[in-house]
């Protein structure tokens, strides 16, 4: 037995103190104009990060070394578990995932201290102070209700194992990605609050917030896509989105975050919609917190809601009320003083972006309404009811179709004043080509379906309008290639993300329209044909994994008489937990997935086998990846880098001046920072 867990707990306590300092001193300093207090923010944030990192490292160490005297390790790991999953088990439990949350929050905070040195001191102090408050809340929650280092006396001889569902590569990186997104919205949130508190809400504020928001959004996009991909291959029936409350909890902030990215564009470029953008920045992170509450409190039942302790729920709710209620109160108090910004007409790019915002926010509100309606109904005594996929599909899809339409129009429209007839002329070819695609392509792919045709119409519309837009920009003086190269990365980032939406729509449309499924009983040598592929069952053998034994089926696939490959779907039995898992085998392809899932042995020596043919299903995640990539590309834009460099130079001058003007003790603080 080592003292590592105690070290971890002690580090966590120190981190809590640091977070408290990071919150209280800079905020008070900013209110009173005390430079020395404001200057504490960065060092406190960095210290806090180091302490949380130590705590996280201690927990990871306990998992890696199988220290079953730690309750968390004993309940969520096992000595048979392979090393990578033992490491992943660090964030596989309620306590561990909250520690990861805190770690990533501290990481974002440190990133802010590093990349925002050029910010005015007061603004930076407020931003870090707000983030410190959130850190403080989460660390307190960890230490008080969900201590990951609680000892188990006497120590267990063996751990209870990590849920087999989570023993998967995608599940190793899904939570960090998702949390990077969730937590990343805290930066935009902190910027918004700092700007409201300081009363300086201008285009510069939007320019600072924008890259942070976009990067967080890219992470969230990846995280959600990974979760969906995991569900697709791990749950064994090939679904990729279930409108499960936990999925919704991550999707709602994504929708609002998407709206935020677009309204930030308006605020940065045109100085308009400021109070709305600020509200979105507050809302996006508030919804991340709300999502955490829904998942962690057990207020909604779900496969994922493993933490059900009333104390925990109450704590997060109180924290929620303080953070969200407090920030919305500040908003109500300060937002009226925010100016209107530049003028624009009813038909203009600003208006299109605002319409996109209205649709995205209504969609987010609808998903939230559906997710919470069971709680409302129960609280009002209207009985228990369930709101599931049929509801969400019926409501969400009609709300999103106009968004897809506007992706085509918005970027082509001019700022301030656009003309509808001119837009119609510019987009006529795009429209004709997409209409023709929607009319013809379904027949080519697999038969006419109105839904497929509509989906393809939207996808083709996005692609053709993106091409039109690029074409218009490239034409003219200076040569095609040169003009293309002159376009900014943020422009290409936008177009790439929009193409991602099109790719996503194609995937969803074609897989829902043309997927095939067969559930058959197969003896050795039996064949069946699904989606033009012949599947032959070659029997079942036994294989032994590190912590499971499995029946492994062998299915050879051929098309047109040519052998393509052999697939090995497994039925695993995990030794320590006794749980049985279906491990489907998937043959991935650009235009289709073949998905084979082994069922149970049935009478006469045969096995039940489920075979799916899923056309274009990978386009769903490819689309999400393109969206995320678009975000990254946009953030790498020259103007942010140039701006950082310039402002850094300016900050240096400011620091020099400060050094000359202040007491020796203060000089030390400033030097540490720069």
């Amino acid at each position, binding site marked *: 037995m080592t003292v590592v867990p105690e070290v971890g707990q002690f580090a966590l306590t120190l981190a809590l103190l640091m977070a408290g300092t990071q919150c209280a001193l800079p905020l008070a300093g900013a209110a009173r104009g005390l430079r020395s207090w404001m200057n504490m923010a960065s060092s406190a944030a960095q210290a806090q990060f180091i302490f949380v990192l130590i705590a996280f490292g201690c927990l990871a160490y306990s998992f890696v070394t199988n220290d079953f005297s730690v309750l968390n390790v004993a309940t969520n790991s096992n000595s048979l578990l392979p090393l990578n999953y033992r490491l992943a088990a660090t964030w596989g439990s309620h306590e561990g995932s909250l520690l990861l949350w805190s770690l990533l929050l501290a990481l974002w905070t440190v990133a802010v201290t590093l990349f925002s040195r050029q910010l005015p001191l007061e603004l930076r102090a407020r931003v870090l102070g707000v983030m410190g408050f959130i850190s403080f809340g989460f660390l307190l929650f960890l230490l008080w209700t969900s201590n990951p280092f609680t000892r188990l006396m006497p120590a267990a001889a063996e751990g209870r194992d990590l849920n087999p569902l989570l023993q998967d590569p995608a599940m190793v990186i899904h939570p960090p990605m998702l949390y990077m997104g969730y937590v990343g919205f805290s930066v935009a949130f902190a910027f918004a609050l700092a700007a409201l508190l300081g009363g300086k809400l201008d285009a510069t504020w939007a320019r600072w917030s924008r890259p942070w928001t976009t990067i967080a959004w890219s992470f969230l996009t990846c995280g959600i896509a990974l979760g969906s991909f995991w569900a697709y291959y791990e749950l064994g029936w090939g679904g990729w989105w279930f409108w499960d409350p936990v999925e919704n909890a991550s999707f709602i902030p994504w929708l609002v975050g998407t709206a935020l990215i677009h309204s930030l564009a308006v605020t940065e470029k045109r100085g308009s919609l400021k*109070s709305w953008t600020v509200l979105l920045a507050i809302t996006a992170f508030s919804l991340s917190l709300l999502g955490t509450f829904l998942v962690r409190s057990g207020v909604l039942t779900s496969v994922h809601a493993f933490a059900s302790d009333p104390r925990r729920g109450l704590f997060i709710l109180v924290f929620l009320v303080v953070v969200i209620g407090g920030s919305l109160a500040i908003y109500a108090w300060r937002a009226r003083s925010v100016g209107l910004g530049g003028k624009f007409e009813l038909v203009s790019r600003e208006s299109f972006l605002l319409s996109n915002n209205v649709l995205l926010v209504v969609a987010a509100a609808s998903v939230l309404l559906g997710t919470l309606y069971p709680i409302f109904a129960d609280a009002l005594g209207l009985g228990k009811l369930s709101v599931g996929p049929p509801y969400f599909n019926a409501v969400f899809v009609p709300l999103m179709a106009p968004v897809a339409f506007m992706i085509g129009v918005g970027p082509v429209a001019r700022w301030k004043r656009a003309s509808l007839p001119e837009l119609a002329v510019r987009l006529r070819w795009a429209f004709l080509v997409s209409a023709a695609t929607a009319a013809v392509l379904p027949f080519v792919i697999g038969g006419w379906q109105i839904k497929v045709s509509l989906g393809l119409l939207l996808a083709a519309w996005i692609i053709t309008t993106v091409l039109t837009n690029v074409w218009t920009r490239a034409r003219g003086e200076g040569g095609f290639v040169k003009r293309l190269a002159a376009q900014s990365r943020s422009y290409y980032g936008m177009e790439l993300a929009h193409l991602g939406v099109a790719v996503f729509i194609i995937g969803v449309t074609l897989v829902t329209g043309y997927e095939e499924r067969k559930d058959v009983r197969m003896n050795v040598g039996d064949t069946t044909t699904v989606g033009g592929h012949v599947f032959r069952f070659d029997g079942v053998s036994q294989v032994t994994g590190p912590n499971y034994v499995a029946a492994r089926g062998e299915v050879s696939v051929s098309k047109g008489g040519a052998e393509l490959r052999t697939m090995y779907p497994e039925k695993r039995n995990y030794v320590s937990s006794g749980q049985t898992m279906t491990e489907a085998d998937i043959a991935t392809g650009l235009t289709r997935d073949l998905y084979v899932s082994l069922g149970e042995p049935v009478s006469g020596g045969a096995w039940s086998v489920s075979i799916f043919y899923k056309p274009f299903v990978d386009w769903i995640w490819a689309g999400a990846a393109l969206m995320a990539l678009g975000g990254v590309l946009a953030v790498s834009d020259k103007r942010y880098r140039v701006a950082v460099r310039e402002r850094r130079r300016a900050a240096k001058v400011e620091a020099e001046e400060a050094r000359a003007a202040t007491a020796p003790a203060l000089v030390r603080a400033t030097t540490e920072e720069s």
Partner: protein
Amino acid sequence: MTKFLLPLILFLALAVFLFIGLSRDPSEIPSPLLDKPAPAFNLPQLADPQRSFKSEEMRGKVWLLNVWASWCEACRDEHPVLLELARSRVVPIYGLNYKDERRDALNWLEEFGDPYTMILVDADGRVGIDYGVYGVPETFVIDRNGVIRYKQIGPVTEEALKNRIIPLVKELQK
């Protein structure tokens, strides 16, 4: 100016609902059969599978129908409470042995005791479905007219027995 207050008001309303939601158990689903006639059944008895028993025979009596099985862990938790209730002779307890093997059920009673006036066998779970059973154990209080007056989802606790079931039974027996 109220328009800037709107988000705060909406959020606070939401927080109130979430607070109420915290005190509710999302896994408890009230039965739509409450205050409706108990579904009729005609089932073999566990003690003697040759003999069957019709629910109509309980007309005019207040009784408890307890759904249980030998494979059900939580049934063990409530068993002492049922035994105590049986000893008090306040109300007859009829068992519905749900999706169980006869041998296992008999062994289980041998080991833990038998509080039941009679046990009926629902081998394929049909009657369970008629009663909307979704988790074993579940217990129904049925009145003289054959109407379901109360449903306990999950184990019968001492508390539920004292505060709800016994007072209700006494009331119904008047």
